């Protein structure tokens, strides 16, 4: 028997609790607005909490994200729902009605104390999506060390129902029979901050990103570089060898019509440079090469960051990588056509290769439903007044923040989230005046 539908009311419904959703929520709540913030993942923090350090200041991503996460969690004007899906949002008489489902964590959140005994007792290991499958987690586990909230999720598809977690739990909060909880919410305005996905690593067949263990994605590289990464250091996935020669292949998911991603993803040059710098810090004698088309270091302080990387000895090679293969020891071999020095294509062997994948929208209205916002040719949600009010979507009262309208770095995302908050607040004021 599922429980009765819960009713909620807020000034603004914010969908997505990555850095854009967190910032927009805080900027509105600090002005006294009541916020309902809904996140589909077990923890708030989005993609950013997954990163190692961030350009161009090299602050650790956690240092920038966790305080905002904590502020949101403790804010008296923010009602936070995690591990919760928004199914549908409709505009009725100028108000938004949302149908929302809180997915079962299979435990009573009001009783759970986050002690992790269940996690310790569990005997089933699964690939850890937080570490992009480089590491393992238990079938019942808290998403990551500084997750908010500190409640585990039980993966019912993989659970053996052995009962070890329930026995270990000091508050008897595990409930294998828990049902989804339906919620209906009413809000005056909506901010969508649904973020991005990386382009598929398998998309470019010539690169074999899904076949070769030592050809990895940028977010996997982030985890290798993170202080609490899966291996506790930079090692390559196939054999744990510490790599001596690391290559970055730029535009491996962007500026490529054959992948359906003709646009530039804006962040890949900078994250590759940042990762290269971090690598050269932790592996001082390693050779690091970045194969690129154009280095797009356009933000504030970014060009200087790029010049510092060059001065550190990171090799920047203007070249196109035609294909990637591997030798019997899983060393990736790059077929490279240089645009400098010599035009003869050559094969270069590296120990580890990172493909600079691009950004695609995580949520596409035409494909995923929820709310019918117009999209552009690039499938990102379209701004109807791009130059003057970039956060304005095709539906009155619905505003967009962050990478759901196009690739964007963290700085631009945070600024745009503030702008979306301003638009939402002014929209509410106009509505009240009517």
């Amino acid at each position, binding site marked *: 028997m599922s429980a009765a539908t819960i009713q909620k009311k807020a000034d603004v419904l914010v969908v997505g609790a990555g850095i854009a959703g967190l910032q927009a929520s805080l*900027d509105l709540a600090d*002005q006294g607005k009541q916020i309902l913030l809904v996140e589909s993942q077990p923890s708030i923090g989005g993609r950013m909490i997954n990163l190692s350090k961030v350009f*161009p*200041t090299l602050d*650790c991503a*956690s*240092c*920038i994200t*966790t*305080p905002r*996460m*904590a*502020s949101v969690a*403790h804010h*008296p*004007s923010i009602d936070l729902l995690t591990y919760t899906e928004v199914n549908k949002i409709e505009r009725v008489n100028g108000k938004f009605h949302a149908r929302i489902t809180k997915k079962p964590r299979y435990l009573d959140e009001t009783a759970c104390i986050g002690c992790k005994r269940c996690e310790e007792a569990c005997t089933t290991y699964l690939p850890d999506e937080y570490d992009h499958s480089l590491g393992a987690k238990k079938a019942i586990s808290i998403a990551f*060390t*500084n997750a*908010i909230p*500190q409640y585990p999720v039980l993966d019912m598809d993989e659970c053996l129902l052995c009962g070890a977690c329930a026995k270990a739990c000091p508050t008897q909060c595990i409930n294998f029979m828990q049902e989804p909880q339906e919620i209906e919410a009413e809000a005056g305005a909506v901010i969508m901050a649904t973020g991005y996905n990386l382009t598929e690593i398998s998309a470019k067949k010539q690169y074999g990103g899904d076949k070769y263990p030592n050809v990895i994605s940028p977010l996997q590289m982030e985890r290798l570089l993170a*202080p*609490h990464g899966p291996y506790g250091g930079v090692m390559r996935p196939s054999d744990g060898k510490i790599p001596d020669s690391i290559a970055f292949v730029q535009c491996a998911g962007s*500026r490529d019509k054959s992948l359906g991603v*003709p*646009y*530039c993803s804006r962040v890949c040059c900078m994250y590759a440079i940042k990762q290269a710098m971090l690598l050269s810090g932790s592996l001082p004698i390693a050779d690091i090469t970045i194969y690129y088309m*154009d*280095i*797009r270091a*356009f*933000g*504030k*302080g*970014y*060009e*200087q960051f790029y010049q510092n990387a060059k001065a550190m000895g990171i090799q920047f090679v*203007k070249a196109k990588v035609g294909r990637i293969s591997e030798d019997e020891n899983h060393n990736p071999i790059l077929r490279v056509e240089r*645009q*400098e*020095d010599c035009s003869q294509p050559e094969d270069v062997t590296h120990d580890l290769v990172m493909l600079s994948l691009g950004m695609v929208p995580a949520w596409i209205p035409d494909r995923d439903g929820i709310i019918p916002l117009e999209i*552009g040719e690039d499938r990102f949600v379209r701004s109807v007044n*791009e*130059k*003057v*009010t*970039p*956060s304005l979507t095709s539906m009155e009262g619905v505003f967009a923040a962050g990478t759901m*309208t196009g690739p964007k770095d*963290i*700085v*631009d995302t*945070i*600024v*745009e*989230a*503030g*702008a979306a908050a*301003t*638009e939402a607040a002014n929209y509410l*004021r106009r509505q009240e005046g009517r």
Partner: protein
Amino acid sequence: MEEEKNTQSQENESEEIRVGVYVCHCGGNISDVVDTKAVVEALKKKPNVKIAKDFVFMCSDPGQKLIIDDIIENNINRIVVSACSPTLHETTFRKALTRAGLNPYLYEHVNIREQDSWVHKGENEAATAKAIRLTAAGVEKIARQDPLEPIVVNAEGHVVVIGGGVAGMRAALALFKRGLGVTLIEKGDRLGGRALELDKVYPTEEKATDIVSQLENAVRSEKLDVRLNCEIEMIEGFVGNFDVQIRDKDSKIDKVRAGAIVLATGFDHYQPYEGEFGYGKSPVVVTLPEFNKLIADMPQSDKFTYKGKEIKNLAFIHCVGSRQVEGVHQPQADGRVNEYCSRVCCTATLHTINKTLDKFPNLNIFDLYKDIRTYGHGHEDYYEKASKRGVTFFRYTDDSIPEYAPSPNGSGATLTMKDVLTWNEEVSIPADMIVLATGMVPREISNLVGMLKLPTGTDRFLQEVHPKLRPVELANNGIMIAGTCQGPMDITESCAAAGASAAKVSILLSKKTIEMDPYVARVDEAKCDGCKLCLAECEYKGALFMAENYAHVNPALCVGCGACVAVCPPRAINIAGWTLDQFDGMIDAISMEELEPAMVPA
């Protein structure tokens, strides 16, 4: 600001000092260099320290919970966190203290990252010893700290926006719609700023003048207080209560009181020096803004004629005045080169190239670039279109910047460079006309920078507090920035920044009062002998004055600089939170001799 106030003062004179020390690993940022466990063990032995712990991320929720639990369960009444710079997280932890019911000023943030682990890599033992000394000093300081209360001032619900360009109008409108009073000050004789120079804008191909009219009409219909032909004469006061003196073109001064200020002072075009790629010496060398103006009204034609001569070959050079390298480029007036990328010029250049080819399809166009940075929505299309239309691209490097040589007949020029795209072949490009893609430099606002002591970066643009934590705020409380005064941006990005600063102003002024940190001078009237030495040192008008034979402080105006403290013979003045007694304790702790043998560097 969001925390409910819960600072009941449980403290009294006789209460035992119970310090909790928390050492953060900051992931590995600190713990890879500093032995955090050793710091904890050493601190446990210090007087007044009741609890010492280390944790992976103190700023995370579980980290903050450690502190809150110890305050509530173990009666800890003073907190020291040894972690990153206080500019990052001092406020974070103060809020945690408030949530636990402790006065938020009984908190000391010790920086063992920027000032220790980051600068002592590879010297782990010495870095650990330093962390112990710094943390011990923090303990001594906070042990001598009494509870403080923030200074509360009234906030004027009015905002002065300086600069009537797109960003300024955008911010002013957003603030007005939030219900705040707004005065928009523009130096020129009309609103619109640099956008007025533009024809159509990428990627929407709207006319820039339409964008300006759209905003200007909104400004006019909302009846905002707009002051054209006006400049700032003087700004005094502080957050919540700025007194802004505005001088009009007849030099008449008007005064406006504002709770906050938004700077939207914009940019200037980089002006090439005489002879830079022939600029100023040859009439056929022009900047991109000059070229755009030139072709704006030209009709479509088979021929492009300029100064009576047909132009067949037109060359564009990127990165003029941007991405400069020391030792290669001529320094600017302040001796520095413009290292930064101006962000908009690549797309602006390719946008212009396409527009030029629309009008003059027979032109040969050469594009000399370092990297093509068409990063934004729709930008790449202009690059692709230009390539397809037969524009020839040459890529130069800092080792081979195009060399300009005027033609012998004086009517054109040759550009010589090594082209990376053809494996460093030396190429000579004939150009009947040359367009320089000049970048952005900040508007000349040295009067404001001096008057308000505004922070600027090495790029001379206004410097935000932190690019991610506080991207549209200056260190000066109550002063926000919008648009290109912060750095190169296009119209979309400027408008987003304006919206973000409007949010910050709205938060600041959403309540009628503003709380400020209480770190200001306090005078012990019993000790003050009225010598007035302090008055001569105080630079802040009205902050320090004499009455009843001893010095008085206006806490709203005092910035806590400490100049008065330094000259006071009887030590009668102290900065709250930074008293002389606290400094004595810190110095003793830092210079202590008895370190654990293992901790003393060899």
